[in-house]
């Protein structure tokens, strides 16, 4: 009987506890990131320029060298580029050009055309599409110049940045002529 009693008391001591020492639960939060079409343009050399007119510049003499302004476009969609001067002038023949101020602070001005090429093969691409004259808009797919009939920018040139692997280069040529 004593052994039976000891057995029962021992059994009561070793019954497992049902008390939980910790509770645990979880919840979820949804994450949504909306990415819009992105196109950023960067001018590694800035946008200021100087057009140098040689002393002997003339329609049949020394020419005025174009100024080249490279730019880089980065984006994730179709990027469209156009350019316009901040100030226009109208030449004697009625054509509208950009107006570059002379060293005298504006007493003299020089008209220039803008030729945009986009995209171009490399970052420092120096090629300039030439034809009999400049202006009049566009004759090639990746080239546009000032229309000349009003104070309006060049036509828009577009490139698919995804196909360009998110980076495309372009060049703005500023072309001035004597006279």
């Amino acid at each position, binding site marked *: *009987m004593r052994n039976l009693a000891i057995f029962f008391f021992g059994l009561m001591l070793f019954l497992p506890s049902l*008390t939980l020492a910790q*509770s645990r639960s*979880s*919840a*979820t939060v*949804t*994450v949504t990131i909306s*990415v*819009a079409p992105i196109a950023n343009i960067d001018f590694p050399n800035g946008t200021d320029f100087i057009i140098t007119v040689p002393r002997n510049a003339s329609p049949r003499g020394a020419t005025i060298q174009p100024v080249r302004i490279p730019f880089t476009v980065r984006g994730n969609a179709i990027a469209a580029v156009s350019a316009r001067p901040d100030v226009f002038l109208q030449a004697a023949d009625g054509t509208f050009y950009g107006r570059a101020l002379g060293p005298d602070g504006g007493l003299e001005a020089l008209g220039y055309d803008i030729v945009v090429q986009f995209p171009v093969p490399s970052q420092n691409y120096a090629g300039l599409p030439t034809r009999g004259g400049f202006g009049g808009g566009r004759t090639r797919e990746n080239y546009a110049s000032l229309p000349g009939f009003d104070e309006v920018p060049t036509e828009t040139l577009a490139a698919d940045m995804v196909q360009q692997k998110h980076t495309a280069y372009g060049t703005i040529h500023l072309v001035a002529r004597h006279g």
Partner: protein
Amino acid sequence: MMTKKNKPGPRGLACLAALLGAIALPNAAQAQQVSNDVFQTNVNIDVLPFATLEFTETGTPLLYLEIPPASSSTIPGSGVPFEVSGNATASISAAPHEFMFIPHVGSSGAWMGKATQGGEDLGYRLQVEFPDEGVVGSNIQVGQLPGTSPDGTTPLEVDLTLTGGMRAGIIHLIANKAWTLDGGIPLPGLYEGTIILTLTADY
């Protein structure tokens, strides 16, 4: 020769009586008439530690950011706020449901949460503030993804009994358009992911 049997002593008889009393089932035929006696029994009530989490804004909890700008964050004011109620020490951690490794972040890359649009992935970071307001003896605590492994934030523990059984927190999202596998700009669209908050309560 007769064998003398062992008889139970007084202690043994008392134990046996106690056991028999514990397992005997009363029935009407054996009811005893009791008067002017006090019976006492011990009742044990185990109060388990518990904690519950409730999002304080209506609707499905959503962390939302727009790109551009290049780097976006819901800090300081547009995260998902929540309240934890309970009777013990509550511990909360957060982890993205899916991770991705961005090799060009920092000096040796970083593990981040993964938001997905079709086959395109975009990394994100998160930040948990719990509690998001400090009281004496219980300061503001901030948890972030470690970045060195695909693990959630370090659990943040708060003793809820110090403040009447409730504390508030908030979870934030950080995104950057450069957090893609190749470092390029992500395609336009909605990138989606899920964060799992885990709450435990313990004494």
